[in-house]
């Protein structure tokens, strides 16, 4: 390893990058676009569920029940209809997600202390939202029952839950730190996937092979400019996340920078490995997309908790560095935890980085002999 040669490769790579519009867009525009797109589009919060009220009782009690539903902010009264048949087209078209039927005699039954049946019909075509809507409905009914019965009817045990780290339970607080991991995995691998393949395609690899430059110098020299770009990207995404989405950053920025570097080197190394194997820019880009985009999005724990995945997918998720980085970003942004908690993720990412670089060097050993 000679510093002069390493510097020559890195400088050349940086110059080429500066003159390549496609790479520049990929490097600087795409991360921001992805953040805005995902940050605004993805939300797992369910509120303002449109509600149809079919009040067959028409009493003060039934009206209070309706108010109990809308008062929480979870439901919005979208329609008031006379008969169930009128609610059906509203459910079918999705104009309402939940139809609440208050049967005739509801007030009388509850006044007499009898069980008063209520019917809620939920649109189950979106199972997640349906589950949440049912939960909200039960909570609303419970709140109403509590008010109706007064203090005397209060249940003897009350669970008081407090949420830590993400007090307002805003999914955006979860999404933005996670997005950093997903976006950078994609960008890093895509960027470097082009570089070695380009040398093969243009025939310059043979010229390089005839000079004293070593494989290690080529791999590291190519990696260096992209690492700097990756760090700039993470900084930009972080600042946007803080400014635009109000995400908290509670942990150490230095630790975040260090672990980001380890993560980026691994992802860049993966891209270089793909590039060395594919030898064609088109194939390399496609491979990089395939091996990073969906895995990082679906198997990293970004969208679905890894603990509820089937065993096979859980096993695969261990191979996705975004999985570890996701724990790191969420940990540092939301929990403010330090190296004492994140060292395992850090070590695994460093291991991935080492393996990535060695694999990239190995991949073009045969040709560069």
């Amino acid at each position, binding site marked *: 390893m*000679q510093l*002069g*040669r390493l*510097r*020559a*490769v890195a*400088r*050349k790579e940086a*110059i*080429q990058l500066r*003159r*390549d519009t496609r790479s520049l867009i990929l490097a600087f525009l795409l991360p921001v676009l992805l953040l805005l797109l995902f940050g605004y589009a993805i939300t797992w919060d369910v509120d303002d569920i449109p509600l149809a009220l079919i009040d067959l009782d028409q009493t003060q009690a039934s009206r209070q029940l309706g108010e109990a539903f809308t008062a929480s902010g979870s439901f919005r009264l979208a329609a008031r209809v006379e008969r169930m048949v009128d609610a059906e087209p509203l459910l079918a078209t999705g104009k309402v997600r939940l139809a609440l039927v208050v049967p005739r005699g509801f007030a009388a039954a509850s006044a007499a202390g009898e069980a008063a049946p209520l019917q809620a019909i939920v649109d189950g075509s979106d199972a997640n939202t349906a589950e949440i809507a049912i939960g909200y409905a039960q909570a609303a009914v419970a709140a109403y029952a509590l008010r109706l019965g007064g203090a005397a009817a209060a249940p003897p045990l009350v669970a008081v839950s407090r949420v830590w780290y993400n007090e307002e339970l805003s999914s955006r607080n979860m999404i933005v730190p996670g997005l950093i991991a997903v976006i950078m995995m994609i960008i890093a691998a895509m960027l470097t996937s082009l570089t070695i393949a380009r040398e093969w395609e*243009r*025939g*310059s*690899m*043979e*010229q*390089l*092979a*005839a*000079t*004293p*430059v070593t494989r290690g110098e080529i791999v590291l020299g190519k990696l260096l400019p992209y690492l700097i770009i990756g760090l700039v990207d993470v900084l930009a995404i972080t600042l946007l996340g803080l400014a635009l989405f109000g995400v908290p950053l509670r942990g150490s920025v230095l630790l975040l920078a260090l672990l980001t570097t380890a993560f980026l080197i691994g992802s860049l190394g993966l891209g270089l490995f793909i590039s060395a194997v594919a030898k064609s820019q088109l194939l390399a880009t496609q491979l990089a997309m395939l091996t990073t985009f969906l895995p990082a999005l679906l198997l990293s724990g970004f969208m679905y908790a890894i603990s509820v995945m089937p065993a096979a997918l859980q096993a695969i998720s261990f191979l996705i560095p975004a999985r570890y980085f996701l724990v790191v970003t969420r940990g540092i942004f939301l929990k403010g935890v330090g190296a004492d908690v994140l060292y395992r993720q850090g070590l695994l990412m460093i291991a991935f980085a080492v393996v990535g670089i060695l694999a990239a060097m190995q991949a073009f050993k045969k040709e560069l*002999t």
Partner: protein
Amino acid sequence: MNARVAVLAEDLTKHFGAFLAVDRVSFAVGAGEVFGFLGPNGAGKTTTIKMLAGLLAPTSGRGEVAGFDMRSERAAIKQHIGYMSQLFSLYGDLTVAENIAFFGGLYGLAPAALAGRRDWVLQMAGLGEQRRRLTRELSLGWKQRLALGCAVLHEPPVLFLDEPTSGVDPLSRRAFWELIYTLAEQGTTVFVSTHYMEEAEYCHRLALMNRGRLIALDSPAALRASVAAPLLEIESANGPALLGLLKGAPAIRELGLFGRAVHAVVDDAAAAEAVIRAHSAAAGIPLAGIARIAPSLEDVFIARVHAEGGAPQD
């Protein structure tokens, strides 16, 4: 080893699967020599050069380049050779000066040394005015001269050029060869492959290759002299008519029209000359002269292939 030998090959052999690309090739190239490799595409020239330059491992045989063993000292060889691949492989999206700086860096030149060599290359290649231009905007001839410059930044004792002038116009080709001579005069050993016959003439010594085998090795003049059958060049007022007239005449083996002159391969020069003079006098075509000339390298190549009992490749 002999200090005067810059490149040595002993029974170099390369198989690609079942295909025998290079078959037991041996030669020695002296320091400061311009050594040519002549042969059709696929004759094994490029494969031999790649083995010597340390880009391909030979199947068997050994070699030395600039005093280093081809198998065990590849890293040292790469520091002591310049190499220009058949494909143009500088970076089109780098400027002339950036390409020079990049390769200078790869050869480990210190900044001060690099500045001096860069100016030398720019001046040598006539690219002083173009140093800030993107390399892809240059004409092919200029690109080739720049590539040559980049290959000799570190002043290597041995230079491998694999068909450096293919596709370049004749004028640029001549300029390129002047550079090669300049380098050779400064002591650089130049190992160059080509399929241009007239370029082969510029080499001090020539190795003819066909189907992976070395079929002849000597100076261009000696190679031409080695062809036994005499060749006559006949100048006349009417070449095409004379050609028709001489067809089938005794003592004449082959005929060809070269410009206005007729070339005839004959068995015996004196006998043939008498026959030609008799025919032209009878037909009333005045002769401007008959001279015995040396055969071209193309003639030599064909003759050697026939002597080897094989057919040339297409």
